[in-house]
């Protein structure tokens, strides 16, 4: 649970709350960018970051991102993270939907 997954920041969504949309292995997810924001949030668009439980924790280069993603796939962690993201979306919808998603 302590491994981050690489994602590319594609759009700033809420400047006041330091939120941005990231693409993680093709899945789009809003993440908090407070830990990697040193200047204007717009400057982060296009950059790669290690994302851990919904927070961009460290900026990395594209090559590092690709290698890390490959290692995570090898460990089964990438799939686990994507499933956790889907579970998180389901949890927002409420207990009924949550239970349904699990049995699906």
């Amino acid at each position, binding site marked *: *649970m*302590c*491994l*981050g997954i690489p994602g590319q920041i594609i759009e700033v969504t809420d400047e006041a*709350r330091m939120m941005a949309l990231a693409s993680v292995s093709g899945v789009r*997810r*809003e993440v*908090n960018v*407070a*830990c*990697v*924001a040193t200047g204007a949030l717009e400057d982060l668009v296009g950059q790669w970051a*290690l994302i*851990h*439980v*919904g*927070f961009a*924790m*460290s900026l*990395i*280069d594209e090559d*590092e991102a690709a*290698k*890390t993603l*490959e*290692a995570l796939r*090898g*460990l*089964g*962690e990438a799939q*686990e*993270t994507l*499933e*956790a*993201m889907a*579970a*998180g*979306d*389901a*949890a*927002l919808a409420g*207990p009924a939907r*949550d239970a349904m998603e699990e049995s699906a």
Partner: protein
Amino acid sequence: MKHVQEFRDPKPAKALIARIGAVLDRIGATAEKPVHIMEICGGHTHAIFRYGLDKLVPPGLEFIHGPGCPVCVLPMSRVDECIEIAERPEVIFTTFGDAMRVPGTGKSLMQAKADGADIRMVYSPLDALEIARRNPEREVVFFGLGFETTTPSTALSIQAAAREGLANFSVFCNHITVPHPIRALLDDPHMVLDGFVGPGHVSMVIGVHPYDFIAEDYGKPLVVAGFEPLDLLQSVLMVLEQIAEGRAEIENQYARVVPEHGNPVSLAAIADVYEARPSFEWRGLGEIDASGLRIREAYRAWDAEEKFGIGYAAGARSVAEPEGCMCGAVMTGRMKPVACPQFGTGCTPEMPLGALMVSSEGACAAYYQYGGARAAEPAE
């Protein structure tokens, strides 16, 4: 059972393994008298087994699997407290999925959910915050669990809740720190440890200096490592080279991600929201001074322990671990998972007795998944 994965790049791995062998020869390490290196991070343990590194390296090197999986070191009493909170009718209890199957005294969170408690698996504390915004009539509790990699995300979420005045959100804080259990292990006279491979993503937050005491006070080397197999092999080589040269330093193999002084925003959030507990109970390791974090007085309104009068806020309590469970001995390197009498029989990933079998990052689950199980099966 899954097979150990082939290296996608065997050439540099072979070269590193040959160099590891040469340094082990220089040290004079043999199968009878091996060098003991502890990897602290559960992600590293997982990678070591996945890629069969423990079998690829020469017999003069032995990996000791450390306590670096927060799910594995969670004591039963804390699981019981989670369930007590979760079963309150007004509560929506939110947790990372990893913690769902950890057994408590009576049941796991998974079983409590089946019994009707509103327990929801989230990917991020931000999901829990959003659930709290959408359900103002319910109490939303987030199960804060993890080492320094996860700690800032909970801290930033508590700060956000405070800014928004989100009064129906609170955190059951079980965040723990990496340096203190290492000190406890080094103080244990039964432990034989010659060096450490340090967790990379924890150091992405805290930097490398919190480990200085390992070199300065105990004379042991530590190398902060990435979790790709080549990172691990290179880090092991760096530890061994230090031992061969009589050095004990804190080195950073993972500098491409780990800044020397960590992440300033994360560190500021941690310092603002938490303080060290006088002591915190670890499964298998007992109480360790200053090893756990609690929420500071200023954020008391978002502390589930205070809100529900539970856990450390309710005074001392202790729950015995299940009989026959050897997680503590395994986690301190005194026993290999396969030597546990329950391994693969009374304790399996499907029906775990102890936490090291629950999490895929636990040493027992890794042994079970990648071949250790065969050794424990009774001969037919």
